[in-house]
């Protein structure tokens, strides 16, 4: 950031929660100090720049790359050799895992009046969906994570499939991630089932149990005698996966199924795409070639494909009246994106604040999206090929939807940004570790605070005033480039040249009106009381609230 050039002071305040750096811009336009607030968890990489011999103020110091699109540069005075100490302290605390230190969430002693860990209770959530019913049962077969170590303890499977069946199916699915129910349509009872790819391999192996199992799933829906399978990958990749033992459900093995490929690319493509986004917004935002630069990042194109896939899933379930199976390779990246977005489109419950928390908790956290690997919490290996902004991409899709339907979501943009901020911050335990079994072993719920505690104890801040609850509304966003836009308030929020997040004037005006309405309603009630009192006691002094009444300053 060009603004943060001249460094006057640098303190490490208090504990090592955060690095508080205060400084003043040398050629400050405003005589105010800029306060920087960077949770150490956000730091992806720390580098020294400039040597003792290099000249110029800017060339000697530290360069910090953050996971949230920020890059910070600190120019340091060469005298006093403060840099080395600072570098070491920062490295140590920003990457605690490499120094056998605990992640900050385990030390955080914040207290909230709500316990976010109680937000998601799988049994309650499935009960809300009307489960179990006579086609679907809840099983505890994975109680000790023996069937599948990356799945949650509690699973919903077809009533007609026995536990032994499940075990046999597990042998034929990558990492034992068997097809299990994610969501059931309240009316037509069609379902969204998620899993990983079948282990077909080069030889085109078949597994009778797996075939039978999918057939059992198909039969839970009597309206249509086909089961739809969505493979999130491009078909080329699905074919290529056979070489490593994976593959997809072929027609001849799986009768009565229809397979579609959704052409969503893998984690590496997404990571590179986001890198390119950073290149066009940092250090300067492209001006005249903005649009072609944006296009060349392919970021929105990926968003479009993910949304398109989710729309297809949702539409198939809702109007196609067919049950669907969704998988990619392992069923924890693209699959999570597709199922959760489709559920968001189909089920208005997930568009409320708590509903969304449950959705994330369920489809992402409990079903083993590898947050630790994808984000690299506390890990110094910034170039790790496992890192990828899959969850960010999901949140971006949600933002695109909320932009297209500004009255359909109970939460606001701040809610989404807060989630993303704490995806990296390591202040809460919510996004730590790769799967439920690991979290249980580390006693995350006992030893850390949940992000939902922070949010739910201060819900008003995250509420969208325009929210209109519409129970049975299916929400189909338009997955066209004409409507998708770069989330400027997130990706470019650190750039001082870009519009600051000013309070939205429409929202502000609406809030004013809301307040006014409440006041009027109160006054009306008072008047009603006064009038009835007056009827009894005519001597009551005539009050003149009409003079005091504030008028709406608009023509109607």
């Amino acid at each position: 950031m060009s603004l943060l050039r001249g460094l006057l002071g640098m303190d490490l305040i208090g504990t090592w929660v955060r690095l508080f750096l205060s400084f003043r811009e040398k050629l400050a336009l405003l005589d105010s100090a800029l306060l920087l607030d960077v949770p150490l968890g956000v730091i992806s990489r720390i580098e020294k720049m400039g040597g003792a011999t290099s000249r110029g103020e800017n060339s000697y110091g530290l360069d910090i790359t953050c996971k949230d699109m920020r890059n910070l540069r600190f120019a340091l005075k060469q005298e006093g050799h403060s840099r080395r100490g600072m570098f070491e302290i920062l490295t140590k605390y920003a990457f605690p895992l490499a120094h056998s230190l605990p992640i900050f969430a385990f030390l955080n002693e914040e207290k909230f009046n709500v316990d976010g860990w109680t937000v998601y209770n799988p049994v309650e959530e499935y009960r809300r969906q009307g489960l179990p019913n006579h086609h679907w049962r809840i099983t505890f077969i994975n109680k000790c994570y023996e069937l599948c170590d990356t799945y949650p303890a509690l699973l919903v499977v077809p009533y007609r499939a026995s536990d032994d069946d499940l075990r046999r199916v597990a042998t034929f699915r990558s990492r034992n991630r068997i097809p299990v129910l994610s969501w059931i349509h309240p009316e037509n009872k069609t379902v969204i089932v998620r899993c990983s790819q079948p282990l077909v391999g080069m030889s085109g192996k078949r597994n009778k149990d797996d075939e039978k199992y999918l057939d059992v799933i198909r039969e839970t829906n009597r309206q249509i005698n086909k089961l739809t399978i969505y493979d999130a990958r491009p078909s080329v990749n699905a074919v290529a996966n056979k070489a490593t033992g994976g593959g997809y459900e072929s027609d001849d093995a799986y009768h009565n199924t229809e397979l579609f490929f959704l052409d969503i690319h893998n984690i590496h493509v997404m990571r590179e795409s986001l890198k390119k986004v950073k290149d066009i917004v940092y250090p300067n935002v492209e001006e005249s070639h903005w649009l072609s630069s944006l296009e060349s990042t392919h970021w929105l194109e990926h968003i479009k494909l993910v949304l398109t896939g989710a729309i297809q899933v949702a539409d198939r379930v809702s109007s196609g009246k067919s049950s669907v199976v969704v998988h990619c390779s392992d069923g924890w990246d693209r699959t999570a994106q597709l199922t959760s977005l489709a559920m968001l489109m189909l089920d208005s419950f997930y568009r409320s604040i708590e509903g969304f928390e449950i959705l994330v908790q369920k489809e992402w956290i409990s079903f083993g999206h590898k947050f630790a690997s994808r984000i690299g919490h506390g890990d110094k290996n910034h170039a790790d090929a496992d890192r990828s902004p899959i969850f960010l991409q999901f949140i971006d899709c949600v933002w695109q939807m909320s932009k297209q339907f500004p009255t359909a979501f109970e939460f606001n943009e701040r809610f989404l940004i807060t989630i993303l901020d704490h995806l990296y911050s390591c202040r809460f335990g919510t996004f730590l570790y790769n799967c439920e079994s690991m979290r249980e072993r580390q006693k995350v719920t006992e030893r850390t605070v949940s992000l939902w505690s922070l949010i739910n104890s201060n819900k008003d801040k995250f509420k969208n005033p325009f929210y209109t609850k519409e129970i049975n509304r299916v929400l189909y966003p338009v997955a066209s480039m004409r409507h998708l836009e770069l989330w400027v308030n997130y990706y470019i929020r650190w750039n001082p040249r870009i519009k600051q997040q000013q309070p939205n004037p429409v929202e502000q005006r609406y809030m004013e009106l809301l307040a006014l309405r409440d006041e009027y309603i109160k006054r009306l009630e008072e008047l009603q009381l006064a009038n009835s009192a007056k009827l009894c006691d005519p001597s009551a002094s005539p009050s003149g609230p009409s003079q005091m009444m504030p008028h709406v300053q608009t023509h109607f």
Partner: protein
Amino acid sequence: MGKGARELRARACWAAFLALPTWVPLLQNVCLGPSDKNTRLCARTYIQDRLHLSRHRCYVLGECEVLKCRVDSCEQLLCEANTVLKCVQEDSCQRGIYGRLVCTDFKIAFLGDDESALDNDETQFKNKVIGENDITLHCVDQIYGVFDEKKKTLFGQLKKYPEKLIIHCKDLRVFHFCLRYTKEEEVKRIVSGIIHHTQSPKLLKRLFLFSYAAAAQNSTAADPKNHTVMFDTLKDWCWELERTKGNVKFKAVSINEGYRVCERLPAYFVVPTPLPEEDVSRFQGHGIPIWCWSCHNGCALLKMSALPKEQDDGILQVQKNFLDGIYKTIHRPPYEIVKTEDLSSNFLSLQEIQTAYSKFKQLFLIDNSTEFWDTDIKWFSLLESSSWLDIIRRCLKKAIEIAECLEAQNVNILLLEENASDLCCLISSLVQVMMDPHCRTRFGFQSLVQKEWIMGGHCFLDRCNHLRQSDKEEVPVFLLFLDCVWQLVHQHPPAFEFTETYLTVLSDSLYIPIFSTFFFNSPHQKDGNVGRESQDTQSKPLNLLTVWDWSVQFEPKAQTLLRNPLYVEKPKLDKGQRKGMHCKHQRQLSLPLTQSKSSPKRGFFREETDHLIKNLLGKRISKLINSSEELQDNFREFYESWHSKPTNYHGLLLPHIEGPEIKVWAQRYLRWIPEAQILGGGRVATMNKLLEMMEEVQCLQEKIEEKHHSQEALQAEATSLLRNSVRLSSLFPFALLQRHSSKPVLPTSGWKALGDEEDLAKREDEFVDLGDV
């Protein structure tokens, strides 16, 4: 072209000229071809015909027009065809409606056979003049025919007639008319008729405008609530001078009354006070600094048209001397520094604007769903390659630069252009919208358009190519201005009294030939043709409608959509002044920098005048006084300092011009594309909530007041007052609601090659050996 139709045209022309009522015998001999039983048109009186047709609601000019023009109606049927199938796209499948396609001297209209289908459209936002299936002749952009599945542009005489007619409109609607079931004779007649009436060059006098005005004679009661200043009187200019406190240094002159001096200038205008009036006539108003607007600090925005280019050295010398004299006049205080901004050489060219827009509009004239999705993947690069958005950015940037000079540097600005009637209009009005909050009210904005564009002599007739005389002259300068204003409206919603819908319908009004506003090249041309001093003794002077009378197009209810509910009038401090107060900027831009650079005189006048003269004489000039770097720094500082502070909607207003901030005016450009519609979404959704809340609050307010007067207790619940909110389209109020069902639109196009990421794409998410292979 059939004999009948030709004769009809001839008569229509005659009728228009003499402003006679279109009378029964006129059409008696004209047979318009075989019609079906219920529309026996032949040998019928025109009146009866109209009565019949008025049942089709969209045929005649709209219901109230029917009433007032029935006797001496002006609209004439030219040709028609039956059993035409209008193709409608619905949920990505084609559907058709049978009906008649007619072409009158006003519009092309499609009349569906199924009247009930037409009647049930409950759009609040109905245009009274132009129906959903009406295309005014001026609104037609391009006509295509489909021959054996191939689309070809249609023009001139046709040898073969198409099975399908595709009409692209200037308001970006696309109509598909299938002619497969239409009689061959009728196909010939309607296709050649439409091509002829929309594409062949016309005479000004033959514009529908005149026949309409003649017919609507007695009913021209001007809207009494219309406070738009028309700038056609000396008083209007004096008022504007007073409003902006420009009267200290400038005077309104009437030397051009009757256009004695110059036909390009309005009858009245404003010049620097010391300027001798006879100078104005020397070069027919060229080389004269003409006042546009004064800033609160006294700095003025001026414009000047260049002197004619001459080869003769003697004449050049005369011109030089003349300009020297002019600059000597404004050399003295109180004008101080005048900086010139040459818009013809250092800025956009009209050619660029034309090319950009013709590429840009093509992105929205979409024939079918496949085309929509095919272009979707390349959308951003297609947008960029049109450079329309970049042109908008450049205009906004130029306007900010000028605002900076006026506001922060206390410098007068003189805009220079060949005729001072294209980019001068654009930039000067844009600067005023940004700097003068009065121009952000509806009447203020309309007055601004009157002042800078109509009186400023912008050649609307040529720029819109209304007469189809030269495609080369067709440049959407005014639309560019509206798009720039839209960017401001979009970025600062509470700052404007009008909505984007207002801008959209204003842009549509460019092609409705019943308003005189946009159908002349200059006030001189207008007055000459409708003349207060009309030579024709038989006819009364024509009374033309102005577009600012919105009641002609919209019912009061629909008009509420033109008003921005977020706009809050500036609290009035003194009630003294009646007509539009001078709104001083509340925030005088507390810039810590450039304390009014009246500073180093820079020897401006001597050298600068020389440069200027060279420039005016059509020669190359060297760099301006300020080095461009310094300009850039000033600009950046001004721009960033403004944006770092909270916005005062009643003060100076600057747009963001960074890449992501310049957007496509979706309401105007995407409104007819069903695929682009978000049902129940878009900004409309929140605005609708806001309006509902306002209604509720107002109801409560009324109730409370009522309570004070009556003792009885009203039991009605506040919430019950809420109307049942309908799910509106994101393209409201324009969407044709072609998508009724809740089916999603699904992209049909595939993925574009990833290029250099191809090997990444082939990689496994995580490499693991899954055992036996």
